[in-house]
């Protein structure tokens, strides 16, 4: 007997049919995706850091070690979508021209899947435009210049490069965070000086710091700005000039052997009895210098990258990362190691995200598209890659303090300042300078 279908039953059936069709459609897509093959060959990942020269010890080798560690860990977990990572470690030494030639070879001849690289801002600026020109995916992992992804005037077009990314935040955040920390701990400071290397990195770092500190503390007088050549071996003249200036705080973006040399000579000359350092990327040096590193100095961590922050009980990923790194290399990871983690993990996460959407192994363009708006967990918290292809991170500033627990000063746990990413990074499309100019004093 035929049953008459009433309106309610019809709607139920129609709904069920719709859901069924939808389910079939989704299942069909997934089935289709599953059918798309994933190659079995290893993924060629070029990791470029300074492996020789003055930047090798403090930056290149800790970064390269983290790449090797993470490639090994990911490979043991099955690689990326089942493909093993074939990590090719290469030296960044030789200058921008050498790096441009190397990048051309890697993309055109060796056909690597991705380049994770560069500590030098000069190298980043020279090489990243090749990403679009030659069609190679590039993730700048450590270089700090804020102009890499920014246009000259606001608003600028984003992204600057379709296939070029930076997976860590730039020097703007370090110097803004330092200025904010100084405002909190020394709001009455009157005299500030700067010692920064005489090239783009040093000049840009001071430029942003000066803009920020003058906006935050208008009473501050800049009493001395010094520009020693990179790889200077004798800072005695500079140290005396700083002592003579009466500065209470000395801003510095010195790095590597220069930072070590300056701190040692300055300590022996008694500079730290009258002034405090504010080091925009000072986090590695207490471990480098041991107990010789002076207490009470402001140190920025190039993000929130520190072996004791986030606290291990609250963020187990940092505990794992630090423990694994220390076990393998005998040292605590410093910020370049965290940056390397972010680069290789950003690539892995973007490939997996793209694959989940399109199925199979994504093309370079699909991976780039997935990376253009990506958020992922890191040992330092969350890293967000924005539409301008530049990462945003929170930024940690601390004050060095000797404790009985470590053979070098750590950042005083009672005075850790973490500035959220929106407070220390210009929004996409706005230059850092114009953003600071728009702050209310």
């Amino acid at each position, binding site marked *: 007997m035929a049953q008459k279908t009433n309106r309610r039953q019809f709607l139920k059936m129609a709904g069920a049919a719709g859901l069924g069709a939808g389910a079939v459609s989704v299942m069909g897509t997934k089935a289709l995706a599953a059918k798309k093959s994933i190659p079995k060959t290893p993924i060629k990942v070029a990791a470029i850091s300074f492996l020789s020269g003055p930047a090798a010890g403090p930056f290149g080798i800790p970064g390269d070690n983290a790449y090797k560690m993470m490639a090994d860990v990911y490979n043991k977990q099955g690689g990326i979508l089942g493909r093993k990572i074939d990590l090719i470690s290469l030296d960044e030494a030789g200058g921008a021209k050498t790096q441009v030639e190397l990048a051309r070879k890697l993309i055109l001849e060796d056909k690597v899947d991705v380049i994770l690289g560069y500590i030098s801002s000069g190298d980043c600026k020279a090489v990243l435009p090749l990403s679009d020109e030659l069609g190679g995916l590039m993730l700048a992992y450590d270089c700090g210049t804020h102009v890499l992804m920014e246009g000259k005037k606001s608003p600028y077009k984003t992204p600057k490069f379709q296939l070029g990314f930076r997976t860590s935040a730039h020097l703007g955040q370090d110097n803004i965070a330092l200025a904010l920390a100084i405002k909190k701990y020394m709001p009455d400071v009157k005299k500030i000086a700067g010692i920064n290397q005489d090239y783009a990195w040093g000049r840009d770092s001071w430029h942003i710091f000066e803009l920020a500190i003058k906006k935050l503390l208008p009473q501050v007088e800049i009493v001395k700005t010094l520009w*020693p050549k990179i790889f200077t071996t004798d800072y005695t003249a500079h140290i005396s000039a700083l002592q003579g200036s009466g500065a209470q705080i000395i801003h510095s973006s010195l790095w590597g052997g220069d930072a070590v040399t300056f701190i040692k000579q300055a300590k*022996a000359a008694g500079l730290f009895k009258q002034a405090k350092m504010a080091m925009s990327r000072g986090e590695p040096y207490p471990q480098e210098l041991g107990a*010789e590193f002076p207490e009470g100095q402001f140190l920025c961590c190039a993000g929130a990258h520190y072996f004791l922050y986030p606290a291990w009980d609250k963020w187990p990923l940092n505990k794992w990362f630090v423990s694994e790194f220390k076990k393998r290399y005998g040292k605590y990871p410093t910020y370049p190691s965290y940056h390397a983690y972010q680069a290789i993990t950003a690539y892995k996460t973007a490939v997996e995200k793209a694959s989940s959407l399109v199925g199979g192994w994504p093309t370079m363009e699909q991976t780039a598209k997935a990376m253009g708006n990506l958020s992922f967990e890191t040992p330092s918290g969350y890293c967000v890659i924005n539409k301008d292809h530049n990462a945003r991170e929170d930024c940690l500033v601390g004050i060095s303090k000797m404790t009985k627990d470590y053979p070098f000063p750590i950042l005083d746990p009672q005075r850790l300042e973490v500035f959220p990413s929106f407070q220390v990074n210009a929004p996409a499309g706005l230059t850092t300078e114009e953003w600071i100019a728009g702050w209310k004093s």
Partner: protein
Amino acid sequence: MGLIYALNGLYFAAFLFLTSLGLSIILGVMGILNLAHGSLYAIGGFVAAYFIGMMTGSPAVLMLVTAAAAAMVLAGAVGLVMETTLLKPMYKRPLEYQLLITFGILMLIEDLIKLVFGGESRYASAPFDAMGSIEITGHTYPVYFLFVMGITALAGLFIWWLMAKTKLGIMLRAIEMDRDMAQAMGIPMRRLTVVAFVLGAALAGLGGALVVPTTPAVLGMGMDVLIMAFIVVVIGGLGSLKGTLVGSLLVGLTRSFTVAFYAELEMPLLFMIAVLILVVKPEGLFGQK
């Protein structure tokens, strides 16, 4: 602060004197512009850093004497090999061949250092730390810098004695003044050329050894020193001990006071002085025409 600025200038002058003296002797006696001089200085730095690292815990002066001696011997030995194998065939060739070969040697030594010592910076600050600081007119000053000034004064006196009071030095000066006449007088040119080169190389090694307690030994450390040493030699004059001393003092003190009062002019002023000397007195303040 004036006294401290002056002491800083004297320390930098001492360091420059040690490194440029060898360059000046080689240039004066042999007529060779040794671009690899900075590499010999770097060898001294790395060797000294190695020895200081090995002797951790020993008295500072013992560490320094051992490290400096080892650095001088090794830099001198490399200089000997360099001169007898690679430079000797170039003496009768035009100047550009000598420049090319010494530049090639610079690159070669750089790679050899990397091969032997690795690419990482080498820290050797134990003697600097151990010597501590003293108070001078109410200012803290590192003792190590005074030590370097003392060693440099001794080295300068030794070279002066060697050049002025010994037969070897008189013969070397004769070669500097007139090579053809010296040869005609029967001076053993070949042997003395080797001696001059090894002496210059050993002095470069000593310079490198004395600098590493204050700054890490790094690849490429010889390049900047080479530039500064050239400025000193241009100002002071080729092959002149007095010229090298005055050139070093002028550069050291000018730099110290310029950084204190007009920091932006630190390097431009030094280059301007060198250019001025080249235009007005091309042979240098104490050089021979």
